[in-house]
């Protein structure tokens, strides 16, 4: 199987879907002439022209709303936010328009749109450019949320997101774009991963690490450390947060009786809050220890390198949390 970067996997997915369906177009800041702030759309302008690869003004609220409008009348826009940090400007259009439209029209007008871009922190980008935005989006019914952590998932899930008939927030990671991994050859057929299916990235019997997005890779590092200690961690990568593969979480907790949620965002009403709630409600009799969360420190992201490092969740904290639920410290 070819090994390509996460960035190229996304590029392939966009190109394939645009090739397949003329109603798909990409709009956002720097997506056309500049080839994308993170080069995800490299070469697409050349391939599809400026009708379908569109540089927008720096108007997040405006072009997000324009995308929603276009989707309301049957196009399938892919709206790129340079990062989801900037999408906070656009939340009115995401929450009040996209998410609620189908409902408040009584089912007359669906909104098949994808909002995509990186979420979470990169390196030393400081407070306003370093936040995980999952909760903002997944909180609202009417939206679906996809968070791929590997190149293959990025490709298969972006294709599924574009084909989905509802608004999908598709959150990538700045530090993921160079990540390499095996992705099925386009010549071997259409590679689509359905939404709502979690993936066990590592099997284990002692403790379950549930996570999503970029943190999958941190979880894998933590599992490698734990393995040296004789602990087999199972990693459940949720991949999509809505629809959520609850069964996969419960299956693993039934097996290991212990769970840790790892996420990049803040703890208060973070994604982990929901997952913990589900576990205690639906797998109570299988728990051998309270479920523990590993999150970003409950502070805005600092700039200083040393402070940023300790603010972020990392493998060491995951190991610590696993040991805690294993009663090993």
């Amino acid at each position: 199987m070819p090994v390509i970067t996460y960035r190229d996997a996304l590029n392939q997915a966009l190109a394939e879907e645009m090739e397949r369906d003329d109603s798909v177009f990409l709009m956002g800041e720097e997506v056309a002439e500049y080839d994308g702030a993170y080069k995800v759309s490299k070469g697409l302008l050349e391939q599809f022209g400026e009708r379908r690869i569109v540089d927008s003004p720096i108007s997040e609220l405006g072009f997000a709303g324009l995308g929603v409008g276009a989707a309301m009348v049957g196009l399938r826009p892919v709206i790129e936010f340079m990062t989801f940090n900037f999408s906070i400007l656009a939340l009115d259009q995401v929450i009040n328009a996209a998410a609620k439209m189908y409902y408040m029209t009584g089912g007359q007008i669906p909104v098949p749109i994808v909002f995509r871009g990186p979420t979470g922190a990169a390196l030393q980008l400081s407070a306003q450019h370093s936040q995980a935005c999952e909760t903002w989006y997944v909180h609202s019914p009417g939206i679906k949320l996809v968070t791929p952590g590997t190149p293959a998932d990025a490709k298969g899930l972006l294709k599924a997101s574009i084909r989905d008939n509802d608004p999908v927030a598709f959150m990538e990671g700045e530090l993921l774009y160079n990540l390499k991994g095996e992705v099925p050859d386009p010549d071997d057929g259409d590679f689509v991963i359905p939404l709502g299916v979690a993936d066990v990235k590592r099997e284990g019997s002692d403790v379950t690490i549930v996570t999503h997005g970029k943190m999958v890779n941190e979880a894998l590092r933590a599992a490698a450390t734990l393995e040296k200690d004789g602990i087999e961690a199972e990693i459940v990568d949720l991949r999509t947060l809505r629809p959520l593969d609850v069964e996969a979480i419960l299956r693993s907790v039934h097996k290991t009786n212990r769970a840790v949620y790892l996420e990049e965002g803040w703890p208060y009403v973070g994604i982990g809050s929901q997952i913990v709630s589900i576990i205690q409600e639906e797998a109570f009799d299988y728990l051998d220890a309270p479920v523990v969360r590993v999150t970003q420190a409950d502070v805005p992201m600092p700039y200083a390198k040393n402070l940023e490092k300790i603010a972020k969740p990392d493998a060491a904290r995951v190991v610590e949390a696993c040991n805690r639920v294993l009663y090993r410290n």
Partner: protein
Amino acid sequence: MAQTSQAMDKALERFSREKLHAFMREMLLYRRFEEKAEEAYAIGKIGGFCHLHIGQEAVALGMIGPLRDDDYVITAYRDHTQALAKGMKPGPVMAELYGRDGGASRGKGGSMHIFGAKERFMGGHGIVGGQVPLAAGFGWAIRYREEDQVCVCFLGDAAVNQGAFHEALNMSAVWKLPVIYVVENNEYGMGTAFSRVSALPVVERGKGYGIPAHAVNGQDILETWAFMEDLVEEVRGGAGPQYVDARTYRFKGHSMSDPVSGTYRSKEEVREKTEGADPIRLLRERLFEAELMDQDELEALDREVREIVDEAAEFADASPFPDAAELYTHVYSEINEHGRLFFDGRDR
């Protein structure tokens, strides 16, 4: 005398007698519909926010009437009469106000969210200025598909202070989108006079993007209709976005829960407008003067629309409340095969 007046009233010449009668009938329908809604609200059949369009009928009719069926209209929350003007039937609109299953949005939208996808009436939006980028999106889609429809986007005067408005206007200009932005300038954003929160008048606020700005007397149906008829053809022909300051006046309070007059505007001001600038009254006077309509004809038209409005109210009354199971429908248009979409733990 009558002959002279008619000759002097050039504006009338543009329209046939039938057309002029139709104007009267439509505006009467909007007026009677809103009065019925007011009555229903008072007896508790309609709840929540309910914003009446009384006094602004000539804007709705004049700006929407000249459009084709496949053109788009979108507006804010004062949306009942625009919906009727775009061809939606009074029954489902009234039933939506009543929150019934037979409502246009199945009772899920209410007064502020009337939608008619089939009629290309695109709502009904509750966040001031939120509909403006959506309109740009319709314009974008028209261009993308290389079609020749036009989109009319209504907004209140207060919405021109929103960022969404300016972002959308800029994009519309950059991409030459076929969208006509019509500001229903009724002078007040809720209880705040526009002049108190804007350094420039409404018509100036759309400038700066290279979009033609126009001002029309929104109380004169002959003017609004004629103006729009011409403008739509220009836009359809590729003239790009347009900005219209339609000067009008709201005869009622901001919503049903607000006073008609009060600290922000005096009784005298309201009386002066309702007597001197009522679009229906103005049309009647001109038609009567030109002997294009008499009192009997007017009363016949009024009886006709009252009947329609009564039927709409009966339709709404007879329509059942939405079934409890409807709570969970229409949240997603695609229920994915895998995974959980709802997290409240309730039965669905």
